């Protein structure tokens, strides 16, 4: 089964278990997870709108896309909705969505007063409930092909980091060289804001829907004694947020999920104390001590964590 269909199965199962009849998704990461479609990347979060609907019982999907380029074959042209600027057309489409009128629970991945009003009108019997947490829970552990995709994205980000570390000149010039190197290596879409600040560099990219990234300090310590080394070692199945706090160095640190972007769990000095790590999670682990900063993308395995971002640079 293709990767996006494996993912969709996970999402559908999770939504069904949560009692959701219809999902109305507006977040591109959720839409990519479920559909596998390649849609235009734009920077930043968009306002909430109904880009994709999924009928949980039947699996029927409608996707906002004027063309089928980049859309997997399992979503046919008659299930694509062309882009529209007209609120009445959005209303008609949602109202005509099979199952909407009789839905008792409509799941949304974000919320605005305007969209809530619209959904209440097209699904008058339904409770509108947030399901971003349901979808993100389904996404927490990664399938083997997802891990491969993340590893490939890490390699692209490493090219950028290497260019920034090797390039002479001002931070701005090194940053320009790094984003050029990243695009040549396969990604013109940054995940987080690229960072070049003196000896400290941090790069991440989205490549084929998945994020990979790493951070380094020029002239820093060897891998086994980098600031985040003890945190990485503590990323084992069953480790709690509290365990990770105890393993963390003095100073700034963050562990968060890494998949189609920034994901739960989020564990830092303030949040995530009761989170529990599981095998097959992929995590971004970063820490700073003094002048040194390091970050890696790490797979939680049954034994020692595997670093998916290259050891060098």
């Amino acid at each position, binding site marked *: 089964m293709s990767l996006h269909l494996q993912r969709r199965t996970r999402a559908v199962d999770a939504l069904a278990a949560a009692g959701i009849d219809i999902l109305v998704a507006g*977040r*591109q*990461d959720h839409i990519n997870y479920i559909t596998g479609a*390649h849609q*235009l*990347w*734009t*920077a*930043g*979060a*968009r*306002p*909430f709108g109904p880009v994709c609907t999924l009928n949980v019982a039947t699996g029927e999907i409608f996707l906002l*896309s*004027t*063309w*089928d*380029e*980049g859309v997997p074959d399992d979503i046919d*042209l008659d299930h694509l909705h*062309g882009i*529209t*600027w*007209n609120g009445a*057309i959005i209303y008609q489409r949602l109202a005509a969505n099979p199952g909407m009128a009789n839905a008792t629970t409509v799941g*949304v*991945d*974000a*919320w*605005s*007063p*305007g969209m809530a*009003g619209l959904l209440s009108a097209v699904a008058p019997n339904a409770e509108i409930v*947030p399901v*971003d*947490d349901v979808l993100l829970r389904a996404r927490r552990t990664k399938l083997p092909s997802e891990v491969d995709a993340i590893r490939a994205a890490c390699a692209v980000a490493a090219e950028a980091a290497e260019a920034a570390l090797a390039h002479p000149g001002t931070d*701005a010039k090194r940053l*320009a060289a790094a*984003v*050029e*190197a990243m*695009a*040549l290596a396969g990604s*013109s*879409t*940054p*995940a*987080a*804001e690229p960072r070049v600040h003196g000896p400290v560099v941090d790069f*991440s990219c*989205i490549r084929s829907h998945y994020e990979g990234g790493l951070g380094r300090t020029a002239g820093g310590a060897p891998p086994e004694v980098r600031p985040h080394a003890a945190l990485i070692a503590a990323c084992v199945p069953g480790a709690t947020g509290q365990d990770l706090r105890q393993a963390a160095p003095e100073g700034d640190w963050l562990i*968060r999920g890494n998949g*189609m*972007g*920034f*994901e739960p769990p*989020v564990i830092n000095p*303030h*949040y*995530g104390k009761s989170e529990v790590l599981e095998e097959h999670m992929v995590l971004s682990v970063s820490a700073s001590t003094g002048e040194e900063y390091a970050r890696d993308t790490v797979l939680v395995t049954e034994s020692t964590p595997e670093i998916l971002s290259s050891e060098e640079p």
Partner: protein
Amino acid sequence: MSKPPTGTLELDVGRLRRERYAKLQAQMGADGLDALVLLHGPHVAYATDCLPIAADATHVSANRPVAVVLADQSQPCLLGGDPDGLDVDPHPTAWPDIDEGAADLGAQLDAILGRIAHGGRVGIDLMTGAMRRTGVLSAAHITDAANTMGAVKLHKTVDELACIHQAQARTNRAMATVQEALVPGVRRSELAAVFLRRLREEGIDANMIDVIFQPMARRMADGPRTTTGHLAFPAWSGDPVYAEGDLIWVDAGSDYHGYASDFGRTWVAGRPPTSGEQRCFERWLAVMDASYEAIVPGATFAEVCAAATAADAAHQPDGERPWMPHFYLVHGVGIESAEMPFLGTDNGPDFDAAHTLEPGMVLVLEPAIWDDGTGGYRAEEIVAVTEDGWIPLGGGHPYDPFEVPT
């Protein structure tokens, strides 16, 4: 408000902030709002000048800055973000996408809003699932902030025009280098690499869309299938290698001080345009000339669309309009890459007849000419509506390799 100038556009950051904040508070008064709570990045930037980060949506939203505007306060509150150098009342960072963070955000909002949190009228643009689960602002009278933000964005101040002008001029300069790199055998990723480097060199940190260099099939039937039966653009095209004679539609948008540029051109790889391709360009120029002529304050959107349509009518036996049916003849640009005004959309003729151009509106004209079998021409130009007509923004950019007839 200061008037749009006819001379040089110079950004005065202090004036930009003051004028926007005054407009926002006046609009809140008109809309009967006690407070605005803003999470959408461009809205936060409008209220506080804390600029959005041009990165993946999940990263930008994880610990995003939140703006709170109170009707009776002289400066906005900024939760998180970098308040250094801004005229804001700073508050700690919120993590509105996770439940623990949303609960903290709710407590902060209750403290900032005071009595307004209990029955006051609060406009909000977005809530995360975590905010809904943790009951953020559940005792306030919540309305959508979209109308308030839409109203203040519609007419640009002189400094907003300066930002758009700068964004466009810098994008143009970056694209001039990219076009030199377009030779047969080059890949899309190589052109993207040059563009992203050159934007940085132009002092632009924020590339807002994954830059589009789409090779166009000469016949629509050979391109992707569409819901309109018309062209697919801008579509995902992977990492194609361009061959001599490829017709490439280019689209890019970057950001200067929170304001978007919109670059559109048609390029041909490795050779001059054929006479058929050149004819498409000349039809496009005629549509642009007629549109420019029709742009005056008080003109209805319908009048501009009619002028553009008439200019190409001789080539349109089926009465088609010279722009892509899923888009428009004109869209606005500002803190969003496409915002009101929209002319010639599927909102239909009644909408276009009911709306008029007004000074301070910014228009991106993007007609597209298509001659099936030959190909087509599409480009974009930005103008600002003034008291007596319009001024161009961005300083212009050549149409190479097409020739403008003398």
